C-alpha cells in the first residue's frame, strides 16, 4: 500500500492542476475561470505540501510531556499557508474584476468581453478595432444571390 500512496497523491496534485488549467483555458465563463484558478492552486499547493512529508513522522508541534519524535518538514507547511493566502488575495481581486466586467458589459462570456474590449481599446487609441483570429477586420462580403454560378443539376 505504501508504494502506491505517493504516486496516488502526486496523481491527485497533477490532476487537480490539470483540471484547473482545463477550466481556465476551455471555459468561456469568467466566474468559472476564477473557480478553475482556485482548483489549480489547490493542486499546486498539494504538491508543495507533499514536499515536506516524511514517513512515520508527526506534525511539527512540540507537545508538552511528549518525547521528541521525528517530525515532518515544517517549511513546506509554512509555504503552503503563505501560498494559500496569496491565492485568496488574487482570487478576491479577480472576483471584484468579474463583478465590474459584468456591470460594464452585461455578460460573463469571455469571447464577448474580449471583442468589446478590443473595440474599446482601439477607440481609446483613436483607431478602429483591428482584426483578430476570430473576427477578421473589415467586412467579409458574402456572395450575393447571383454572385455564384448555379451548381449544375
Amino acid at each position, binding site marked *: 500500500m505504501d508504494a502506491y500512496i505517493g504516486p496516488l497523491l502526486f496523481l491527485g496534485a497533477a490532476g487537480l492542476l490539470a483540471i484547473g*488549467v482545463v477550466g*481556465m*483555458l476551455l471555459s468561456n465563463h469568467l466566474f468559472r475561470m476564477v473557480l478553475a484558478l482556485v482548483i489549480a492552486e489547490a493542486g499546486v499547493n498539494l504538491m508543495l505540501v507533499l514536499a515536506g512529508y516524511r514517513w512515520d513522522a508527526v506534525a511539527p508541534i512540540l507537545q508538552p510531556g511528549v518525547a521528541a519524535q521525528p517530525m515532518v518538514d515544517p517549511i513546506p507547511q509554512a509555504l503552503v499557508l503563505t501560498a494559500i493566502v496569496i491565492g485568496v488575495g488574487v482570487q478576491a481581486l479577480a472576483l471584484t474584476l468579474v463583478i465590474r466586467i459584468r456591470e460594464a458589459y452585461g455578460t460573463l462570456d469571455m*469571447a464577448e468581453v*474580449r471583442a468589446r474590449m478590443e473595440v474599446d481599446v482601439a477607440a481609446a487609441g483613436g483607431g478602429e478595432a*483591428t*482584426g*483578430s*483570429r*476570430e473576427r477578421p477586420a473589415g467586412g467579409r462580403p458574402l456572395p450575393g444571390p447571383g454572385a455564384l454560378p448555379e451548381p449544375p443539376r
Partner: protein
Amino acid sequence: MTHLDLLLLVALINLPVAWWLAGGATRRRLLALPYGLMLGMLLYMDPGATWDSGLSWVFLGQSLSWRLDGLGWFFALPTIGAALAAAAYSSGEWGEDFAGAGGSMGWLQLALAANVFAMLVLLAAGDLLTLFIGWELVSWAGLPLMVLAGGAAVGAGIRYITYAMGGGMAVLLGVVLVYVWTGSLVPADFMAVLPTLASWQVGLLVALFFGGFGVKMALLPFHLWQAPAYGLSVGPAAAFLGAISSRMGLFAMALVLVKFITLERLVDLTVIPGLLDSRDVLAWVAAFTIILPTYTALKQNDARLLLAWHGIGQGGYMVLGLVMGDAMGSAGGLLHVFNYATNQAVLLLAVFAVMHRTGTADLNRMGGLIVRMPLSFLALLIGIIGLAGLPPMNGFVSKWLVYRSLVLEGEPLLFLAAIIGTLGTILSVYKLIHNIFLGQLRVEHEDIREAPWSMTGPMLVLCAVIVVTGTMPGLVLGVVADAQQAIGLAVPDYHLGGVTSPAGGLDMLWLNGVIMAGFAVGAVLFYGFGGRTKRVHQLDNYAGGHFLTADVRYQYSDNFYPGLMHHIGGWYRGSFQWLEGALISVVDLLATALRGFYHQAQPAAWVLFTITLGFAWAVLP
C-alpha cells in the same frame, strides 16, 4: 589640438553658428563663411600627409581614434565645396523665398552643417569602429535634409532611412565579425590577421561591407530610395546631397574593400570557378547600376528626379573604376567623384534656379527659357556636357580613364556596358536641356527674369571649376594620387593636362586647344564667309524641317524617344519596385500573423503550450 581637431571643431561649432546665421535676413548672407573657413583649413593641410587627431580614447575595450589621410582629404574637398556652394546659393533670395513660404532656414542650415560635420567625422575615421560611428552619423544626418520639403519628401526620407539602416546593420555585422574573428578593430592589427581568415569568412565580410556601403551608393538592387530622396528635397539640400552624400559609400568601400581586404584577396575569392571572381561580381553590379538607373532617368518628367536618377548611374562608374584597381581605372573612379560632384551640383542648382523662377520642375511645363535665363542655361549646358562625359569638360577625363582601364584590363563587356550607360546619359540630358531651355517659351513664363546673383554666382563658380579641371585635370589628379597612395593603389603617370601611358595618354590641354581652335575656325568660316543669319521670333520653330506655328506646342517630353523606349522599356519596368513591394508584403504578412497572436481569445493557453513543450524537451534526452 591638432589641425584635424581644429577642423572638426570648426565643423561642430558651425552647427549652432549656422542655426544662428540662418535666423536673420542680413546674417544669412554670411552663411557660406564657415564653409569658406573650413575649405581654407583643408587646403592648408597637405593631402599627402596623414593628419592625426589628438582625440582618442578607450571605451568598451575599444580604442577610438581619428585621422585624416589622402583618401579622406580627397573626399573632404568636394564635401566642403558642395556645402559652400549650397550655403552661398541659399544665402540670398532663395533663402528669403524659402523662409517666406514657411520653410525653416534654421533647420536647413543646421542639417547642412550637421551633414558636413558627420561626413568629416566619417572621412577622418581611424579604425573600423569610428568608421561605423561616422557611417551612422552620416546616414542619419542626411534624413533631416531630405524631409525638409515635407509632403512626398517625408515618405522618401523614411524609405531612405529604412534602406540606410539595412545597409548600416550589414556594416555593423561586418564590423562585429571583423572584431570577433581578428580580435581587433584597429587597421594595423586586424589587417595582419585578415589574410589568415577562411575564404567564406572573407567572402561574407565582402558581401556585408559591399552591400552595406552599396546601399548608400544606391547600387543595384538597393537603388530605389535615392532618386526621390535626393530629388524631392529643397534646392541647396538636393544639390549637396546629390553631389556628395552618397559618395561616402565609395569612400568606405575604398577604405575597407581596397585598403583593408585588398583587391588581390577579392580576385582570389572565386564565385564561379574559372568564370567569375568576387571582384567581377562587384564590377558587374556597378555596370548594371550604370545602365538601369540611367535609362530610368530617361523616363523621368521631373527635372530633379531625372538628375537624381543619373546620380545613381554615375556612382556605377566610380565603383567600376575603383574595383578595376589599376592606376588609371582607380584614378578615373576617384576623379569622377570630384568631377561628378561639380557637375551634379551645377545641374541641380540650375534646375532649382529655374524652379525658383517658374515654380515647377515638370519638364512638360517649361521650354524656351534660354532667352529669359541665359546664365542658368549656360550653367546647365556646361553641367550636362560634363555629366555626359564629353570633352572639353572634366567629366570626360574621368570617364576616359575608366574606359581606358576597362580596355587595358581586357573587359570588353564591361566597357560596352559603360558606353551604353554614357549613351543613355547623353540622350537624357539632351531631354533635360531641350525641354527646359529650347523650343517655345510658354506664355506663363513671359515675365521670368534670370535668377539672382546669389544663385547664379555659385553656379558660375562651379562652372569655372568644371572647365578649369576639365582643361587641367592634373590639378585634381595630384590629390587623387595622394588618395590612391593612401589605400595602397598604383598611381598613374600624370601631368597638368592629363596622364601619360605607354598604351596612349590623354592631354586635355592639347585636346581642348584643338576643340577651341575648331570652334574658332568654324566661327571664322561662319561669320567671315557666310554670316547669313536671320533673327526670328521664338515662336517660329522648325522641327525636323517641319514648320511649327505658334499654336502648335513644341514640347513632347511625354513620349520622348518613343522608339527606344518601346524596345527597352519592358526590360526594367518596375521589376525592382516589385521586389521591394514583395519584401514589404512579406513583412506585412508576418506582422499580421503576429498581430493575430496578440489578439487571441485565450492567451493563457500559451503558458500551457510553452511549459508542455518545455517539459517534453527536458524529459526527452
